[in-house]
């Protein structure tokens, strides 16, 4: 790392030994991973079929839904925002997509009904979800509305639209009709590649993309800088409003994607799709080590967080924990995660401080 770094100011880089504080900071950063391992071990013991390949695929399929929403949520939370509308947008998009398959797009002025191709429906749906997110971002930045409020509004509006679309009824049997060329929607949810569901592949692909975007692009750096100190980021030339709108658009995009996947898996869309998804997503993000105050954390942690929550939920079902106790335990874990979040901030300060003392002692030697 520091080979080119031959200046006088950094002579101690190569000399530094691994200290106690290094270990501490590693444990703290890897806490979600440790939690995941523990969950896995516990349920492997309690439920013998837990670690079978088939079960892992099923569980990953469940995880993928939450993980995809949580990826978008991570971007938002890294800017110190929050997006409460993700579940509602998923429901709204599910209904809109279902409507497009079963009823087509009615152009009343022209008196015709257009049945778009399935891929067009998917593109339109993703676009609409992205726009819904962008709108929330616009309200937040243009009118200086707190993200909590703006997305709370979107939460109600989108859920309302989901119900309005078909008067609260479900669009059943979303298989399309061959004569309209809109068949195959169910493949998104049911299709597999190399024995692994498409939704899992989507999770993997988008995790990699999101990871690279956050770590290796100027946009990602801007997201982190806004969460760290919005003022300073702005004065450094970061286009704060634009970046925030993009961030909420990303969250909207993933909400729409998840809405489509769930509708496709059910081969039906009903207005309650995505209920409480925002809470699971926030839980995954926070458990994964991203600070609600913004600027700290990242995608890798979120994915681990999503797996931890998913494995825990499925594991409890397999072991036979009652659904009421599941909720109690899940709630406790979320609160615990926030407590750890606070402890972490304090610990990191202390660790940074210890490191500094260690370096000064080395310097003085």
């Amino acid at each position: 790392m520091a080979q080119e770094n031959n200046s006088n100011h950094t002579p101690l880089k190569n000399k530094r030994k691994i200290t106690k504080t290094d270990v501490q900071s590693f444990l703290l950063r890897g806490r979600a991973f440790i939690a995941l391992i523990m969950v896995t071990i516990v349920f492997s013991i309690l439920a013998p079929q837990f670690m079978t390949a088939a079960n892992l695929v099923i569980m990953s399929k469940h995880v993928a839904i939450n993980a995809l929403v949580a990826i978008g949520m991570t971007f938002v939370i890294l800017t110190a925002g929050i997006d409460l509308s993700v579940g509602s947008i998923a429901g709204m998009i599910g209904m809109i997509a279902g409507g497009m398959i079963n009823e087509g797009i009615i152009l009343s002025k022209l008196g015709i009904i257009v049945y778009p191709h399935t891929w067009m429906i998917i593109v339109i749906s993703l676009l609409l979800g992205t726009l819904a997110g962008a709108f929330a971002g616009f309200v937040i930045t243009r009118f200086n509305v707190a993200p909590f409020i703006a997305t709370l509004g979107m939460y109600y509006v989108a859920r309302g639209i989901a119900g309005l679309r078909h008067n609260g009824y479900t669009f059943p049997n979303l298989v399309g009709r061959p004569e309209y060329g809109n068949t195959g929607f169910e493949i998104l949810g049911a299709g597999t590649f190399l024995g692994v569901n498409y939704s899992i592949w989507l999770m993997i692909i988008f995790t990699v993309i999101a990871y690279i975007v956050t770590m290796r692009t100027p946009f990602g750096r801007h997201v982190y800088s806004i969460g760290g100190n919005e003022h300073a980021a702005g004065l450094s030339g970061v286009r704060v409003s634009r970046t925030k709108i993009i961030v909420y658009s990303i969250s909207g995009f993933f909400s729409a994607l998840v809405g489509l996947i769930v509708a496709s898996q059910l081969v039906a869309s009903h207005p309650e799709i995505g209920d409480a998804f925002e809470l699971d997503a926030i839980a995954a993000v926070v458990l994964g080590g991203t600070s609600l105050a913004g600027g700290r954390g990242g995608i890798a942690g979120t994915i681990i967080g999503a797996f931890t929550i998913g494995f825990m939920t499925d594991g409890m079902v397999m072991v036979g924990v009652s659904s009421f106790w599941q909720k109690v335990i899940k709630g406790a874990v979320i609160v615990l995660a926030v407590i750890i979040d606070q402890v972490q901030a304090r610990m990191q300060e202390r660790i940074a401080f210890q490191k500094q003392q260690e370096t000064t002692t080395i310097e003085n030697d």
Partner: protein
Amino acid sequence: MTELPLIDKKADKSTDEFILIAENVTQVYPGTLALDDVTFYVRKGMVNVLIGENGAGKSTLMKILAGVQNPTSGKILLDGEEIQPRSPIEAKRLGIGMVFQELNLCDNLSVVDNIFLSQEIARRDGLISRRVQRKHASELLCKLEQKIDPDELVINLRIGEQQIVEIAKALTQDVRILIMDEPTSALSAAEVDVLFKIIRELKSSGVSIIYISHKLEELTEIGDYITVLRDGRKIAEEEIQKVNVTWMIENMVGRNPATLFTRKERQLGGVLLKTEDITLPRLGGGYLLDHVSFELHEGEVLGFYGLMGAGRSDLMECLTGARPQATGKIWLDGELVEATTISGRIQSGFFLVPEDRQRDSIIPTLSVQDNMLLASLRKYLRGLFLASKLEKKTTNSQIRDLAIRVADPQQSITALSGGNQQKVVVAKGLLTQPKVLLLDEPTRGIDVGAKSEISKLINKLANEKYGVIFVSSELKEILAMSDRILVMSKGKITGEFTHQEANEDDLVAASAVGHGSSNGGKNHGTRK
């Protein structure tokens, strides 16, 4: 008055003359040693003055005495007994009251509510007794000779009046020691007289005062004993009658202030920056910036001097595009600058190193490297992605060029000392390849050595044909550094001096243009 042991502190510690002793107090923050083994004596019934430059540790020491903060090590003795106030409430119960430098009032509450905040007078039934509180508040304000309506909301008061409310708040309980951290910085001359009268009354009723101020002239009038802090260490203490302002400055700065700053005569180039009628309206009428026009030459260090609220920071923010409501024309290199956003202005060639480092400059969650490269990320793109090798190389070369002391570019910026943080911010600016570098109080709150280094850096940049605009409130510094000085007052340029003709008196006179004697700070912005 009898002879008291001054420098020879070991001689007598147990006597009644010291009401409070802070013994060997050390306070460490990440990145800085704020207090280094400081022993501070508070004499009973006296005005104990504490001075030091920004960052010398005065406020930290006071926060420890007032229970806001616990020291890393050291003891506090009150009447010879060790105390450990864990909160301002606890300190107050022990008789230590504090008037903070930043006004700690709730804007949205009335004067009465603020005065009795957290010490509300309750009736039997547990409800607040508004009548009694109002009566007490009126009495207090009366004693302070202020015609402030106790039911007025604090937000509607002038800053000077708010300061009085803050003092009243400290006096609601019997205080034995009253800490006043720069109480006069926002007061008019008349209000200062009232304050001094109050202080004398408090003194005669046996209250010991700890008094912090930057206005050195007033200290000889009100103080009894003086203690000087520098870079977190106690440098000197003396009876105030035996010292003068020169003594204070020498002890605060540690050497002749003029030698801190180096400046070489330079050949100035052509006009680099020209502004015409930069105007920034103020909410509620008037101007924060009133048709400001000036020129900056290539390779010139142009100093801006003025009082708080003179509009210097506003001007810097206008130039950097942070104030969209500003009007006026700006030419850079003979071309009219069209960009209005910050990122656009940065591309045109402006970069601002803001005054408030914590608030506006650094991103505490990011590493040194990420902070440094934030404004110029596009330059390290290879395709869609950032080339980490290039990033590292750039960072290391800047660390070398600016002599930034950092163990590892990946470490958090908060682990650096103030001076090194400031250098990282300057490096961030330089990497955007600016033509004009705007430095707003670049030496505020950094230690003397770092100040000297920043001054060298400014010289170097000017020699490399950058145009440097340098805002400072420190007379010595601005006189020593600038090729030319513009003085601002109330949003206007009120004086222009070349390096040769500038002197302290003229600068101060120009900075006071348009200020009436009874101006209590109402017309000042909260920022410079």
